[in-house]
């Protein structure tokens, strides 16, 4: 069994001291160990942003891609090698802004990807502009009079598109976050984990204390994660309300993943299939079709 050290390397993160990215990074390494995975069995796909550099700071297969396109690259990767555990990590601008369209389609496809969104409600790497999850009225350099856009509701969006796994974690609550990640890794199909995290530099109004005060655990209130309509009601608690539900909001294992349904993939991962597998009459058939 691998250890956390096996997933570590000697590159020091460039994140600000106290950044929520550290919690997500540590949780992920521990979750991979708990899920009994080794670095070569995982493809960690990320976008662009502070937190998307996570795979640079690990010993793991990584694809550090473009802003907003992590899920598209991850989808192509998964379809080409579904034996690999594909995990996507990217920020809220990446996942819900630039990549919002890819997310909607990843959800409805139920492609086997664990999608971890580092949701700090602000753009950090570009130094403090409002993000798709920023609250309306949030004053930043691109919203000097306060943001007019109301925030995206990622969990409600995912549920409305037929999500089979939707959860929310908190970067300070490692024990529960690790557990969510392990569940997400083991899920059949697309799993979204929206992770509340502070940006200690550009979103000082939403610090660890603020999140601690405003969050609660769904299981403490007897939420049934197999009840889609109850899940939808919980999803609408935040943004919009003052209480942020944490934990698995909805899960079903009854929906086949996309890759399970592709006839070609019944023979195993595409990457492991030989380039040419056809008997010679099939080659002749290609020409007969056109004759």
């Amino acid at each position, binding site marked *: 069994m691998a250890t956390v050290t096996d997933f570590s390397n000697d*590159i020091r993160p460039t994140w600000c001291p106290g950044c929520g990215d550290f919690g997500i990074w540590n949780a992920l390494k521990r979750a991979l160990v708990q899920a009994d995975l*080794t*670095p*070569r*069995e995982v*493809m960690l*796909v990320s976008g*662009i942003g502070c937190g998307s*550099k996570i*795979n*640079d700071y690990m*010993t*793991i*297969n*990584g*694809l*550090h*891609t*473009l802003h907003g*396109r992590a899920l*598209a*690259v*991850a*989808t*192509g*990767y*998964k*379809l*080409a*090698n579904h034996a*690999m555990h594909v995990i996507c990590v990217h920020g809220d601008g990446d996942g819900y802004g630039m990549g919002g*369209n*890819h997310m*909607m*389609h990843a959800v409805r496809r139920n492609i086997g990807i664990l999608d971890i969104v580092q949701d700090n409600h602000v753009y950090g790497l570009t130094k403090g502009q409002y993000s798709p999850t920023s609250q309306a009225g949030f004053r930043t350099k691109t919203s000097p009079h306060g943001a007019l856009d109301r925030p995206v509701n990622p969990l409600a969006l995912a549920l409305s598109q037929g999500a089979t796994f939707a959860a929310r974690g908190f970067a300070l609550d490692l024990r529960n976050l690790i557990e969510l990640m392990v569940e997400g890794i083991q899920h059949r199909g697309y799993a979204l984990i929206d992770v509340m995290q502070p940006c200690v530099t550009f979103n000082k109004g939403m610090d660890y204390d603020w999140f601690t005060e405003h969050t609660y655990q769904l299981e403490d209130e007897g939420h049934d994660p197999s009840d889609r309509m109850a899940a939808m009601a919980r999803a609408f608690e935040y943004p919009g309300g003052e209480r942020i539900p944490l934990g698995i909001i909805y899960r079903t294992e009854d929906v086949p993943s996309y890759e399970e349904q*592709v*006839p*070609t*993939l019944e*023979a195993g991962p*595409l*990457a492991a*299939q030989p*380039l*040419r*597998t*056809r008997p*010679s009459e*099939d*080659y*002749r058939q*290609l*020409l007969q079709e*056109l*004759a």
Partner: protein
Amino acid sequence: MPINDMTFRIGGEAGQGVESGGAGFAKALARSGLHVCGVPDYYSRIRGGHNFFTIRVGKEPVLATTDHVEVLIALTGETVERHADSLTPGSAIIIDEEQSYSEELLEDRDVHVMQLPLLQIAKDEGSEVMVNTAALAAAAALTELPLEAVVEVVGENFAKKGSDVVDANRRVAEATFARAREASPPSFLWKLEPLESPTRVVLSGNQAFAMGSLVAGCKFVAGYPMTPATSVLEYMALHADDWGLVVKHTESEIAAVNMCVGAANAGVRAMAPTSGGGFDLMSEGLSLAGMTESPLVIYLAGRPGPATGLATRTAQADLFLAMHAGHGEFPRVVLAPHTPQAFFEAAIRAFNIAERYQLQVIVLSDQYAAASIWSVDASVFDVQNVPIDRGKWLTAEDLEKVDSYKRYALTDDGVSPRAIAGISPKAVYLTTGNEHREDGHITEDPDISAAMADKRLRKLEHALTEMQPPLRHGPEDAEITFVSWGSTYGAVREAVDALNRGGDSANMVHFTDLAPLPVSAARDALSTARRIVTVEGNVEGQLERHLWDEVGIRANASIRKYDGRGFTANYILESFGG
């Protein structure tokens, strides 16, 4: 008597089966041992409008269509009005007797009009949708083509709809054929005589490229439907289960190219078909592929822009786009095949070059080449003996012999040996669109950054050795040298031959491999030319400028066409002042 040398045109509204009927007729002619070239012309709509399909027939391979028509099959009166000017003296029009058109248009023309109860026969013997079957049977009767050739193809086209539909079509064809034989004007000269021939296929540039991709081991295709590239996506989807492919119709071209980057990094041959607008959306993903050295094939079938432009029509306006799309500097290869055989071979070359140099190959096409069809001897397509070269490829066993693996190792030729992530505990690495070290991790070190940029671009020097010299045709020492690229080959070649037959002296230099440009071969071909005339389907003269940039040779004159329609030899000769 002109035997086996004529042009048919079938015209009608969208939804009347003009294109399927035309393609079926072309196939019937090819099975009769004749060569054909068929060019569709249609509007961007599902119903109505005016669509037409032109089929030129010849004993020898037909490279392009003509502007003149000997048999006009008019499913609507409008067809007569639109194409009256194209009718050759002595030609014939086949039209339903119920259709009206302005008759004074034909007053001073030497044209036979065969008015037949096409629709009535279709209704009596089958249903009114079979009117195009009736029209084709009439054309067969007029030109003395045996009816069986048409009936066979029509039967295959409708086989899925059941034997009742097939039988009804046969009755319609037979009844019309008999009526048309009686009504055929004795003085109509153009006739068809079936010939013995080897097995021929009739296919478009798209079909040839798709078939080439399939046999080249393409395993992953991602695309969004866009005319005129859609049939490539459809062909691959149709063959996916039997040939072991994953074909994904994506939410956008942005998703398509990025999925291909993902699939390529998993170690499968990946391809994305698109047109100009979709290719625009792929620019950033192309740049990511460049930085990550992900082998990729993109099929770019151009059409007139900017924006939606002329959605169903042709242009050679995307050469610069193919050459320069994507921010930053990274190597790429651009191929522009000119015949179905060349499309087939370009696909195979593209996948090999992409993997050998770990770069992106853009196969540049246009609506004319993508959607037109040609008859070709089937033996030309060697589908079984396809050379496959995956480049510097390390297996798990290979990795056992090395201490550590560096995905982006600096090498003399710029190509780093590839080991697919995860195949061995030693092949665990990061691939990033940021500048990176040899091991793949992010760096901003100035020396490494420059070395990596050099490494990537260095690959192009070696890829250049794969580029094919321009094709040459005509006498070496000629007064006029036409310079062209891609789909215009057939029209230019016919123009060259016509000039030489008429006592002029012309030759041609035709480019199929455009980037990196085979500069020394281009210089060899052009430096002794006395008068260079470029022929291009764009406004700006993109090849002309490319040649000036790379070779330092200027054209003396240029023929540029940007009305959305393909070139013909006539057009070139007229533009040239001939």
